[in-house]
């Protein structure tokens, strides 16, 4: 195994607030790592900095051997590090199909002029992209609602679509930001299946989630953040027994027997 992602000393300050304070994390290819912590612990900031939505104050992010610290989000995405957003951030006025197809563009390189003329090669690529879009929609269980507008979907489908859009970019590392928050049991089940299928394709996953059951059952390794600092890292069992974690976040172990 080799490290797909090496983060060292990653910090983000907003004025006097340390949203992220010197966080180190190494992720191996094919792993699925959970990131937990109480509200305001810096989980979302961590994803924002990783994906280029925000620039870090200091620290280094090395992804597949490339230093991507502070790069623009579209460049980071085209290298294969892709994130989803909390809630339902979608291209809401576009159809489900178009949502995914837009994101399919990353792997293809075309210049505007040949595209405007509509060369045969461009049309062939269009067809391939449509096929790939359908394949991803099937994977996410969305093939039956492909013509609906994203904003008209039920909540569970919207969340799956968010993941499908990210998948369309052909990520090597997928950062899922609270994928099951606000879902009912059935929807959670479907999302966990989807995550398992994504893993089956060899995609490494970073998972931020509040639902402990999901994190504990899906992740191999967990990092715990509190007030921007990493306070623990280890297997699920280790984390559940960690004094600092229990104190900061999980409460007394008896409460979390389930």
């Amino acid at each position: 195994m080799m490290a797909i992602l090496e983060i060292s000393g990653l910090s983000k300050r907003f004025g006097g607030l340390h949203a992220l304070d010197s966080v180190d994390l190494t992720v191996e290819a094919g792993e699925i790592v959970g990131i937990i912590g109480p509200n305001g612990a810096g989980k979302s900031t961590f994803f924002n900095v990783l994906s280029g939505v925000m620039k870090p104050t200091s620290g280094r992010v090395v992804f597949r051997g490339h230093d991507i610290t502070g790069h623009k989000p579209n460049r980071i995405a085209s290298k294969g590090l892709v994130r989803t957003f909390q809630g339902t951030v979608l291209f809401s006025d576009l159809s489900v199909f178009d949502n995914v197809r837009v994101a399919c563009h990353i792997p293809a390189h075309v210049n505007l002029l040949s595209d405007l003329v509509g060369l045969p090669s461009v049309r062939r690529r269009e067809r391939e992209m449509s096929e790939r879009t359908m394949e991803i929609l099937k994977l996410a269980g969305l093939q039956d609602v492909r013509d609906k507008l994203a904003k008209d979907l039920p909540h569970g489908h919207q969340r799956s679509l968010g993941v499908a859009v990210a998948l369309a970019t052909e990520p090597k590392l997928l950062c899922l930001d609270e994928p099951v928050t606000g879902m009912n049991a059935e929807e959670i089940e479907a999302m966990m299946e989807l995550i398992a299928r994504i893993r089956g394709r060899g995609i490494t996953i970073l998972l931020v989630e509040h639902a402990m059951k999901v994190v504990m059952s899906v992740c191999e390794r967990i990092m715990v953040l509190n007030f921007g600092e990493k306070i623990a890292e280890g297997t699920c069992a280790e984390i559940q027994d960690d004094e600092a974690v229990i104190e900061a976040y999980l409460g007394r172990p008896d409460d979390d027997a389930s």
Partner: protein
Amino acid sequence: MTKAKLPRRALIGVLAAALAAIIIMVPFVGGDYYAHIGILVFLNVVLVLGYRLLSLTGLYSFCHITFFAIGAYTSGLLSSKLGVPVGLCFLAAGAMAALVSVLLILPAARVRGVYFFLVTFGFLGVMDSVFLHWSSLTGGDAGVLVEATIIGTGTQTQDYFVILAFVLIAILVFYRIDRSRFGRELAPVGNAEALAAVSGINVLKTRVFAFAIGAAFAGLAGSLFAHDAAYISSNNFGMWGTIYILVWLAVGGVRRMWGPIVGAVAMTLVAELLRMSGIWQALFYSAVLLLVMMAMPQGIAGLADTIKARFAKGSGAVAGGPPSADGLVEGSE
């Protein structure tokens, strides 16, 4: 439904042919006055189509008419002061407008929403003053006489057909853009900028291209306007120009390309045929804008989509319709 399919297609064909015939007949039957109105309609269609690109990315500029002006002055001055051939003036007008637009949007795209609107509003004001007060170059209030004709002797009929060809080419280009990768990335940028970025779209580049293409076509249109009118002055390019473009866009609806076309054609025709001018035209536009915002916020195109979806029973509700005849027919409902 299936039975009606064939006659409907035939009907559209007949209507399209009739429309083409009417457009060709206008200068012969209507004379110079109607040819002039036709030219206005054509130029306005190009303006609104160019403006639509950036608006799809969620930025609304207030200075689109300024690029039309830059094109008109570039072409008019090159021609009248330096004697440059009209063809070259035409290309230079487009290039100059595109260049200025890039220089403007590179810093301006750092802000969004109403702030972008204000920055471009400021640019419109500055350029308005430049056109008016840099008298040694622009002739100030007195304007510029542009003697070179677009083609031949420059009769209204000749200009009408040249500009008709120009608008048809422009429509074709914008149609292809709509179906290109670049065109399909515009709405996502406007819809969810952050998601677009992490989906691999270069948001800034997309907006720069959208703005520059729109400005280039506005500049080209400005050149044709200058050589057709034979006289330009800063009075031609005030802020009402931009406001009208916004109204055409709102009336037509931005999502489909034929929406703004219908908006520009209908509004220009009504205003001209009722011989409204000055404050009356402004009043009329304001009233229409209010009505549209209240009754059909998605414009004519949005209304047509809603009607279509109601009849289609859920299938293909978001299919991309062809922009020409099909659109015009449905727009007239």
